[in-house]
C-alpha cells in the first residue's frame, strides 16, 4: 500500500508538483534525522544534514528506479551526504557527543532509572562516534534502525558478508572501549 502511494507521489513530484514531496518528507524525516544524529552526535548537524539529504534526494529523484523501495534509496542518498560531511568536518566528534543530544521520548516511569538510561545512552553514543565511519554506519542501521542485513548491504553498497563483518567488528570494538573504561553493558 505504502509502496503504491510512494510511486504515485514520486510520479507527481517528477511531473512538477513540488508540494507532493512534502508527504515523503513527513514520512521519512524522523529516520533520516536519527541516522544523521547517530552518525554525527550533533543535533544541529543532524538537522542540517537531514535538510541537505532531502534536497539532494529531490534533485536526483529522476534517477530513482520506479518499482524499487524509496526508503533504502533515500538512506543511500542520506549516507552519502553524511559521509561527505564527516570527511569535511575536522572537529572532534567525541567532544560533541552528548552535548547537544535532542530529547528522546523515554517511557520509563522511574526518574532515576530514566536518568541512568540517558547517561548510558550518551556514553554509548560517545563510543559509537569513536568507531570508523563504515563500521558506525553498519551498527546504526542494524541496531538503531533495525534494518535487515540485506537492506544494509544495499544501502551501503556492500556485500552481505561484509555488512555482517562490520557489525561484528563494531560491536567488538565497542566492547573493548567499554571494558577499557570499566563500563559494562549491563550497567
Amino acid at each position, binding site marked *: 500500500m505504502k509502496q503504491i502511494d510512494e510511486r504515485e507521489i514520486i510520479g507527481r513530484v517528477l511531473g512538477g508538483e513540488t508540494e507532493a514531496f512534502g508527504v515523503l*518528507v513527513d514520512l521519512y*524525516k524522523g529516520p533520516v534525522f536519527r541516522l544523521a544524529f547517530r552518525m554525527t552526535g550533533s543535533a544541529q548537524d543532524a538537522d542540517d544534514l537531514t535538510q541537505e539529504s532531502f*534536497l539532494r534526494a529531490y534533485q536526483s529523484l529522476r534517477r530513482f528506479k520506479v518499482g524499487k523501495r524509496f526508503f533504502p534509496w533515500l538512506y543511500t542518498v542520506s549516507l552519502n551526504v553524511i559521509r561527505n560531511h564527516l570527511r569535511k568536518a575536522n572537529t572532534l566528534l567525541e567532544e560533541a557527543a552528548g552535548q547537544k543530544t535532542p530529547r528522546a521520548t523515554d517511557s520509563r516511569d522511574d526518574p532515576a532509572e530514566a536518568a541512568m538510561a540517558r547517561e548510558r545512552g550518551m556514553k554509548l553514543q560517545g563510543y559509537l562516534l569513536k568507531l570508523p565511519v563504515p563500521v558506525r554506519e553498519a551498527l546504526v542501521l*542494524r541496531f538503531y534502525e533495525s534494518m535487515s542485513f540485506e537492506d544494509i548491504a544495499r544501502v551501503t553498497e556492500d556485500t552481505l558478508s561484509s555488512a555482517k563483518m562490520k557489525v561484528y567488528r563494531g560491536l567488538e570494538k565497542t*566492547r573493548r572501549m567499554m571494558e577499557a573504561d570499566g563500563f*559494562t553493558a549491563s550497567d
Partner: protein
Amino acid sequence: MKEADIERIVEQLSGKGEAFPLATEDSPEEENRLKQLEAIARMMREEPAPEPPANLGDCIMSRLRTRRPSPWKVLSEALLKPHEVSFHPLNALRSPISGQECSFYFIMVGAFYAILGMILMVGLHKLGESLVTLGWVRWQPQIALATALCMVAMGLYLLNDGRLALRIARIGALIYLGFAFLNGIIVPLEWDIPVSAFVSMLSSLVGVPTGFFLFRAIQNCGKRYA
C-alpha cells in the same frame, strides 16, 4: 575466529540463529564475551529514538520552494526531460498537428542543413584557390548554415504555438521553398563541373519537397485555429 562463525554470531545477536552459548565455543571467557556483545546490541536496540525538530519538515519544504537550480542543472533537465513530441510525417501532410510537432520538423530540417553546411564548407575549402572564381557556388556552405539557423530559430519560435509564430513560419517556409528552387537553377549555370550538379540536385531534390512538407505541416498546424 572464522568468518562463518562471525556471521553466525552476528545473526544470533540479531535474534536469529542458534541460542547462546555457541556449540563450538566451550570456554567461559568466550561465552562471557559473546554475552557482552549481545548486551551492547540490546542497549543499542533499546535506546530511545531522538525526535527531529518540529519545524524540520517546513524548513525542508521552504528550501525546496526557494531552490534555484544551477544553469547546468536547468540545461541538463531541458535536454534529458522527456517531451511529448511525435514523429508522423504522413499525419503532418493530412491531419492537424501540434505546434510542438511542427517545431520539431523545422528543427530537424535545421539540423540537416547545419550538417550539410559543414560538409560543404570542408569540401569546398579543399578546392583551394579555384574557389575564388566560383561566384554563387562558393557561398553554398554559408547559405546552408544560414538556412539551418533560420529553421532552428523558427522551430524554437513555433514552440510558443501561437498564430504569429505560424504566420512567420509560413512566410519562412515559402521563402525557403522559392529559394531552394532558384538555387537549384542558378548553381549549374555558374559552374560547369559535376560538383555543381550535386549541389543543384541537393537544393532542388531535397529542398523543394522539404519546403513543400514544411508548408503543409504549417497549414495543418493552423487548422487548429480555424
